[in-house]
């Protein structure tokens, strides 16, 4: 590699995937592909979610009782597993969002201060 500046990252900031998935699901229940599309779309292509990270994240969230899933028909009338956020998922999302905002604000201040 001989690029002087690294290419703009499309990977997620470590540890934020769960929060983003919860955020997307907070709008409406959605299946796996829908979640990846939505994240890409909303981030305007900045973030790309790999299925290899997404499905373990679903399993993790489900295990902690933050999301629940059931099989439904898709808009194209196919069967797909839809995930929806639970009440404790909503509480977690709120907490993590506040946390995140506090931190990013702090980081922004530090970066601006130097």
């Amino acid at each position, binding site marked *: 590699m001989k690029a002087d500046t690294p290419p703009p990252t499309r990977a997620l900031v470590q540890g934020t995937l769960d929060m983003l998935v919860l955020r997307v699901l907070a709008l409406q229940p959605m*299946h*796996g*592909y*829908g979640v990846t*599309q939505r994240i890409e779309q909303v981030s305007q292509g900045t973030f790309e979610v*790999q*299925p*290899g990270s997404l*499905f*373990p994240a679903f*399993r*993790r969230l*489900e*295990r*902690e*009782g933050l999301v629940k899933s059931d099989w439904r028909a*898709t808009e*194209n009338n*196919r*069967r*797909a*597993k839809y995930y929806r956020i639970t009440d404790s998922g909503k509480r977690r999302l709120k907490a993590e969002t506040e946390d995140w905002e506090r931190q990013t604000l702090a980081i922004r201040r530090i970066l601006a201060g130097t």
Partner: protein
Amino acid sequence: MSVTTVLQKLRSDLGAFFRWQRHENDLDEELRAYLESSIAAHVKRGASPDEAERAARIGLGSVAALKEDVRAVGWSGHVHMLWQDLRFGLRLLRRSPGFAVPVILTLALGIGGNTAIFSLVNTVFFRPLPLSDPDRVLRLLDSARGPDGHRRTFGMHSQNVDAVQRDGRVFESIVSLSGQNLTLTGGDAPERVQVVYRSAGWLPTLAVRPVVGRDFSPDEEREGIDSGVAIVSYALWQRRYGGDSSSLGTTIQLEDRSFAIVGVFPPGFSFPYEAEVWIPFAVDASDRARDFAVFGRLRKGVTPQQAQQDLDRLTAEIKEQYPETAPGYAVTSITLRDNLVDHQDATMLTLLCSVGFLLLLASINVANLVVARSVSRAREFTIRAALGANRWRQFRQMLTETVLLALIGGAAGLLLAEWLTTFLATLIPSSIGEQLGMANAGMDRRVLAFTVVVSVLTGIVAGIVPAFASTNAAQSLKDGGRSSVGDGPASHRLLNAFIVAQTALAVVLLVGAGLMLQNFQRLQHRALGFDPRALLTVEFTPAAANYPPGTRRAQLLHRVIDEIERLPGISSVGATTVNPLGGGDWSAPVEIDGHPPASATDAYTVNHRLVSPALLQSMRIPMIRGRQFTWEDDERRPGVAIVSSDMARRYWPDQDPLGKRIRIARPNSPWLTVVGVAGNVSDARDPGDPPETWYLPYAQQASAAAAQTVHLMIRADADPLALAADIKRAIGRIDPALAIYGVSPMDTFFSLTLKRERLGAAAMGAFAAFGLLLAAMGVYAVIAFAVLQRTQEIGLRMALGAERRTIVGMVLTRGLRLGLIGLAIGAAGAVGLNRVLVGFLAEITPLEPAIILVAAAVLLACIFMACYVPARRAARLDPLAALRSE
């Protein structure tokens, strides 16, 4: 983390675990849906169906890796992966029995040996004593400091027993026990039984209750012997009454007294002194005739150290109350387990170390085989790596396989150990084994846990290096490298290291075996100080009723000896109160005339033996100076003594001991004149036994407490056992009611005393032989493998004109060079280990160079053979066929 979250996770994991298949199907279907949606999206953007599918599949990535990542969330997935690894491993092993069977056998022997030795160690050192809360039980002893500063301990005298029973503040309860051999009459034949006189306090202190019948009542304990009741051992009950519970209340006759049986103790219980009958006893402070084994149960929360402090206070009070007490006297205490177990036991520790080394050797051997086998599996690993199995997963798969092998080996080893321990039970010191009914080194949870842990560790040790080596190779192959396992310098170095390690371990084992064998031979050929061959011993005890202590006892002994001496084939007959190989002991504190009484010497102890005139002659103990005893040396004549040469040297270092005066260190005890010096007899079995001995005439001491059991020492011209019947008849002519027992040649006693050492040496020899075999097999496998790998090279060399001899030399050199390195490391290790052990174990002797040389020679011969066979095979290769081989 809150409780609800934990519960939620647990519920989810359990669901995933028990509905595993459904979860897997769900995931498959979900991924299919994802793919379909993705394809549809690509088509919508204008791609052709083929392009769309291709793009979608690339987008999805490795499905196998993704699924593993999903499964890795929570523990249920890990358990399932482990299960899969196990099933895969089992399938693989079943397909290659040529690999699995030798590996399992090797591990079974290695783990089985460890389990067997550990179960012995467990019994002796860890297993709870079968008493309730045994750690609170202390044994109290009289002790005296000798001139060498060494403190020697004895059973307690009645006056001191009385003092501690009245004033043992730190003890909840105290029991005092005194043993005596008595003749049990009635029934078919009289027999000798060990009787224990038992003071009050048994139940609260030791808490062992009869399993049949009842314990003594407080009234009976107060009355003592006169209560006329007894508890018998389970063995005696079975032997004489067939275990019939209606025998309770029956009377047994012990010499001049009879006792009603009121209870039976649990099977195997014979504490202390291998007792068979227990009788209530009231301790009388003025009684000089016996000493007591005193046990106290500490009050809750009192440590043994605190107890000893209180005993020091008590010592001072005893000295105040009895001014004649020797200055070096003290009441000491040790825990019950310390009383029964010799923590310095070298046999047990050496064996434990050795089986450990053996197992390490076995593990390396297995690692060896695993590496060799992974060559043939290189393709499998590479394919798995290419399919996206990550390195860790592959590493774990290999490790699972060896751990699986080790667990199977461990299960087989457990069976082996169960069988081995029945042979090895002799290695348990008899005091703990026989008296508390712990002779069987049974399997308990601790042994099982040990075996499982050792098996898993063995599997990891055997598998970790090969697993690293082959996953590295497979990964590098995937990355475009060309090396594979078993080929290339890294794995050659690995196999070389195996050879070195195996030889080194084998040397340590061989040297250890040599040391044990040497120790055994030293004991076998030690200077006993007497000649045990053609010497018969017969035991009898004059019943107190017919032969009260005093002249009548001496007369009986004289008549018995005269009667036996008249028999043909017998050259001389002696009598002593202690059989030097019989395990019994009797010692006495002595005082030397002329030494100031304040000197600590006045409480020095020596072995105390009452003997007949011809004893030294019949046992062939050399008379160094002075005269023997005669029957004239009786109670009417001035007291005389013969001392051993060790004793003479210690007490009169630069003087003539003859004519010197000496006596038992007790007020008013009469002075004795030394009339002779005899050779030393080696009869010290315990490190604490005094090395010095004095002999006093039985006839002169016939009123003393020691003048009880008599061991006749009968010197025969030929086979002494052939005379046994004549001897019994001769004794019967003097008194038909006299019970004799323990008829046995002294050399039988001698070999019995070495039973434990002999078995230890044999076990060690077996370990070393097995270790040697493993090392030879390991070297052979590596060298044969190397020859196989180099077939083409060897063919080429031969085609270019190399002679067969050169080829043989080339192969041999490699093996022998590595063997020699291992030999040097092993020898250095053995010397170092020996140095360390000599430092803290009295029984271990320093290594002699001869042992190392012999071990090295044996090992080198084995390595040579292990290399020579593949070397010759290499030399016999047909060059053309070898060149073509792939």
